[in-house]
Each structure stands twice: as C-alpha cells, then as structure tokens.
C-alpha cells in the first residue's frame, strides 16, 4: 500500500500525459478544419482579385484550389460559392460546357443545403452560360426560375433583370425588356451597382436606337452609361459607348460631334489594343472629312489607317507563328 502510494504521483502524471496526448490527437482534426477553411478563404479572395483584374486563368486556378480545400473539410457553403464562381469564370473563358456542369453541381448542392439565395445565383449563372452559348430557351427557363426564387425571398437583382431583358430582346419582346430594364436601372442605382446600372442604360439605348427614331433618347442613355463607365475606369465599355454615341450623332446629322467622338473612340480602342475597332472609326473619319471637302485631314487619316492595318497584320502573323 505504501509502495503504491509512493508511485501514485508518477502514475497520475503518466495517466494525465496519456490523456492529454489522446485529447490532442482527437482535437487535431478540429484544429485542421479552421486552418483549411482559412486557406480556402484566402484562395477565394485571390480568385476574386484575379477575376476583378481580368486574369480569368489565375482566377479559375484559385477557385479550383479553394473548392478542393473546402471539400476536404466538408465546408458546404464554401464549396457552393466556389462552384458558382468557377461557373462564372468559365463563362468568361468561353468554356460553356464545363461551366454548365459545375453550375448543375452547385444547384444540386444549394438545394441539398437549402441555400435559396445561392440557388438563385447558381440558376442565374446557368442562364448566362446557356445564353452565351446561344441556347436562349434554356436560358429563359433558368433566369425565370432564379427570379421566382428572388421574388419569394423579397430580393431584386439588377444583374438578373438585365440578363432577362437581354433574352427578351433577342426574341423581339422589346416592350417587356424595356420595363424590366427600367426596374433594373432603378435597383442598380439604389444598390450602388455601377456596372449593372451602366449595362441597363446601354441595353435601353440599344432598344431606343433600334426603334428607328432620331436617336436622341438612345444618345442620352449612352451618355449616362459613358459617365458611369468613366467612374469605373473600364476602357472596353468606354470604347463601346463612344462608338455608339458617334454613330447616333452621325445619324442625326451632327457631323462635327460625330467626328470628335470617332476620334476619341479611335484613341480609346488603340490604347486597349482593339486595332480592328480603331480602324473602323478611322474609316468613318475618312468618310466624314472626304464629304466635307477637307482632303488634307482625310489623307492624314488614310495614312493612319494604313499604319494601323500594318500593325494589326504584324500582330496577327506573330500570333500565327
């Protein structure tokens, strides 16, 4: 009894140590979980960053790694957002087939975990994938389903309304599209979503322009879109706005305004490397100055056009090598 008591403190310490090691072993899986979730969150942030910068290849890699990390710790919410994000990146990369399969997976998962908000996002993204691949009917079904979910949740999304309006415009339902776009514009403006507000304005301008009027209403929409795109600093959309504003001014007979806008479009398009677009503007400028009898300016632009075509040819042949 005395010997037992003498060693009791050692035995107790050993038992404690064993218990501690056992507990640490059991807890190791729980410690690994937040670490991997943190890692996945970092990868998602990097993916979103690359997406925002237009580096869609890098964005796809980061989101795919985040997906693997989230799956390894059964983080369903993270997995779902990664699947939708991958679907969105793949649309921009033009891989619509892969996008559709990722988004179908996202829809199954969202339904399984009853995440209606993301179910709506997944279905809207699937609508965009179908629309981009030229499948208007399936796109219409998916966007309707997404909007129905939003309505049930009491949410309004400018992006989804714009997409629905684009689909309607393609089937010649311009009046319905116009109503939706007005709603999308109002919602995007109140939500500070500049990108979608500008998209709504551009689509409205497209409808007005196609209606065959003098184009003054369309021009106003393009001007507002241009102002928004300037605040975003998006040169691709600025170039689109300038070109459309120039064409509408030319249609209305305001030749000087049109020429000034074509010159600005040429500068913007050349800066971002859209040489074919820049050449189109120069051709318009040549026509304008030839018609106004300013032969000197017209010949200057002819020389500029030739040099641009040469640069474009060099670029194409380098790409083909």
């Amino acid at each position: 009894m005395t010997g037992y008591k003498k060693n009791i403190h050692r035995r107790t310490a050993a038992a404690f140590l064993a218990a501690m090691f056992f507990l640490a072993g059991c807890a190791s899986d729980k410690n690994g979980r937040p670490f991997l979730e943190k890692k996945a969150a970092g990868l998602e942030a990097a993916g979103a960053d690359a997406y925002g910068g237009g580096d869609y290849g890098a964005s796809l890699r980061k989101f795919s790694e985040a997906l693997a990390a989230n799956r390894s710790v059964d983080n369903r919410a993270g997995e779902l957002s990664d699947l939708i994000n991958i679907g969105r990146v793949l649309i921009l990369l033009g891989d619509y087939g892969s996008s559709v399969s990722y988004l179908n997976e996202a829809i199954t998962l969202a339904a399984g975990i009853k995440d209606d908000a993301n179910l709506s996002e997944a279905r809207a993204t699937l609508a965009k994938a179908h629309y981009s691949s030229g499948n208007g009917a399936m796109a219409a079904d998916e966007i309707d389903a997404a909007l129905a979910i939003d309505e049930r949740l009491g949410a309004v999304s400018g992006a989804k309304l714009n997409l629905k309006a684009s689909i309607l415009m393609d089937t010649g339902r311009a009046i319905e599209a116009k109503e939706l776009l007005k709603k999308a514009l109002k919602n995007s403006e109140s939500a500070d979503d500049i990108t979608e507000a500008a998209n709504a304005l551009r689509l409205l301008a497209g409808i007005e322009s196609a209606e065959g009027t003098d184009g003054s209403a369309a021009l106003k929409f393009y001007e507002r879109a241009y102002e928004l795109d300037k605040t975003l600093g998006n040169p691709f959309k600025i170039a689109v706005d300038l070109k459309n504003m120039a064409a509408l001014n030319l249609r209305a007979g305001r030749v000087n305004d049109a020429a000034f806008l074509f010159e600005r479009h040429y500068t913007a398009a050349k800066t971002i490397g859209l040489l074919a677009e820049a050449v189109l503007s120069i051709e318009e400028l040549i026509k304008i100055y030839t018609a106004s009898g300013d032969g000197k300016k017209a010949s200057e632009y002819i020389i500029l056009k030739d040099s641009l075509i040469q640069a474009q040819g060099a670029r194409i042949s380098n790409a083909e090598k």
Partner: protein
Amino acid sequence: MDNTEDKDSRFRHLEVKIGVMTVAAVAGIILLIILIGVQKDLFSSKYHVHFITDSGSGFKVGMPVKLSGFKIGRVRDIELSDDAKVKVTAEINKKYERWLRSGSKATSAKDGLLGESFVEITLGPAKERVIADGEKIPYAKSGGMEDIMEEVKPILTEVKEIIHFMNSPEGDLKATLRNAKTFSSDLKETRSNVDKMVIEVGSTMKKTGAFIETLNAKTGAVLTTTNKLVGDVDTRMNLVLDKAGGAAKKADEAMSRLPVITEKLDAIANDVKKLSGALSSETPRLQRIMTKAEDTLTEGNALVKGIKEGWAGNLMMPEVKRRPELVPLDGYLIRKQKKDSQGSK
C-alpha cells in the same frame, strides 16, 4: 515506518481523489468518443453494397463514397474473390438509400488531378427500385493516371518544342518583345503629336478669340458711323427717304442681324475650346489612372501577402466565420468599382 498522510495533509483521502479524477477522465474520454462518433456518422445505421473490379489498385479501406459530390459512406472492405477479381464493399449511410436504385453505377474518381480519390456512385433513375442491402452494383472503369499520362505525353513534347522556339532569337517571344518595343515607341510618338496638336489648337483658339474681339470692335465702330451717316441723310433728305422708307427699314434689319451672327460665332468658338480642353484632359487620363492603380494594387497585394504569410499574421488571424462571397455576374474590375463606390459614399 513513515506515514505520509500524517506528514502531509494533501495525501489524506488520496484513493478517493484519484478515483474521482480517473472517473472524470474516463467519462471525458467516453464523451469525446461519442462526440467524434456522432460527427463521423459512426452510430447511424448503415447498409452495404458491393461491386466487382479487375484491379484493386486505387482503392483502400476507409476511402469516401460520394453521390453528386456528397459523402454518403466509405469503403468498408476490399477482398480478392475466387475468380481473381476484386470485390469492393461500400458502407452507405441508410438515409441515402433512396438515391441508390438499380441503374446506379460505381466509378473511381478524383478531386482534380492530384486530389483525394473516392468512389462515385451515380444517381439511379427515379422509376427504378431501391438497391437492397448487400446487393451488387455495376462498376464502370474510369481513365486512370496512366491513361492521362499517355494522353499528356505528346502535349509535353509540343510544349518542349514551343519553349525551344520561344527562346530562339526568331521565336515568338523575342519577336513579340521587339514588336511591343516598336509599338510602344510609336505610341509615345503619337502621344507627343496629339499633345502638340492640342497646344496648337489652343493657340489657334486664342488667336481666333482675339480676332473675333477685334472684329466686334470694328463692326461696332462701322455701325456707329453708319448710324450717324443715316441720321445725317435722314435730316437732309427727308423727301427722298419718305419715298425710299421701305428700303431703309430693310437695311436696318440686315445691320441688326450682324451682332447676332457675331454672338453665334463666339458660342461656336467657346464650344471648340471646351472640346479641345476635354480632348487634352482625356487622352493622358486613361493611361495615368491605369498605371497608378496598377502600382498601388501591386504594392498593396505584396504587403498583405507578407503579413498573411508571416507566422505573426497566422497567429493573429481570427478564425474564419463568414459567408463566402460571389464574384459579380458581369466580370469587370471589381476592385476599382468597390474603391470608387466607397469613395463616393
């Protein structure tokens, strides 16, 4: 013989204390085992299905079994059958039984190229019956790593050739760099030409403005003289003016139009000035904004990356409790939009 209890009061009732502690430790361990068991689905009811495959490589006991990306069970057993085939038995959570119907197939799959291997079971058609416990399901072979390597081999050879070509002086990379250099010097020249043009337009506008002002002054003087002359003629030749009254009225109207025309000219000159101002401010603006934004972002990213990857950053980073965010449906410049909208608020 020493009595420890008498010397140190802490050793009194030692057996009871040890007993309580042991019971508490054992209870804690049992509780932990139960918690882990619940978390890992050890206590939920299971049922088994099996499939036969030619080779057991790539399978291991404990491997996850998934359906539509969800883990529904794990591989319970792998055994060699009498006819030298491999029988893989999967243990499935009973609650997923309804998805496994005759028509469901098992395949081996991977999360990405280097990810975790798992067994994927496909969803059976709704009209078919549910698979019974212990029933066999068909196994569909999927392309393994070796197949992928065989497919990748020619691509790797091509990549090697491309790298070799890119490195040669006449290769794509070198030629493109040369072209880019030429193109950027062209751009610089175009910029300086535009700047010169803007300066010239500005000075021309100034000259035009001065000319218009002189014209205005001279026209005013001419008008005053003409008015005086008309006044003189009016007093001296009343009779003649009576007869030619209509003609004088018309001359007056024509004269009154002159300041209106001058005003219009002024407005046009102002418009041209505004447009040339807009052109000069807009041309370099895009480039400046893009360069500055890029520099700031690169620096910011490097700093944040440094902090995040450092050990101190790892320790101080709070545990992730957030709802994952989605990128916008329209993929354009998120950072800039966020920055601007914050700035505008």
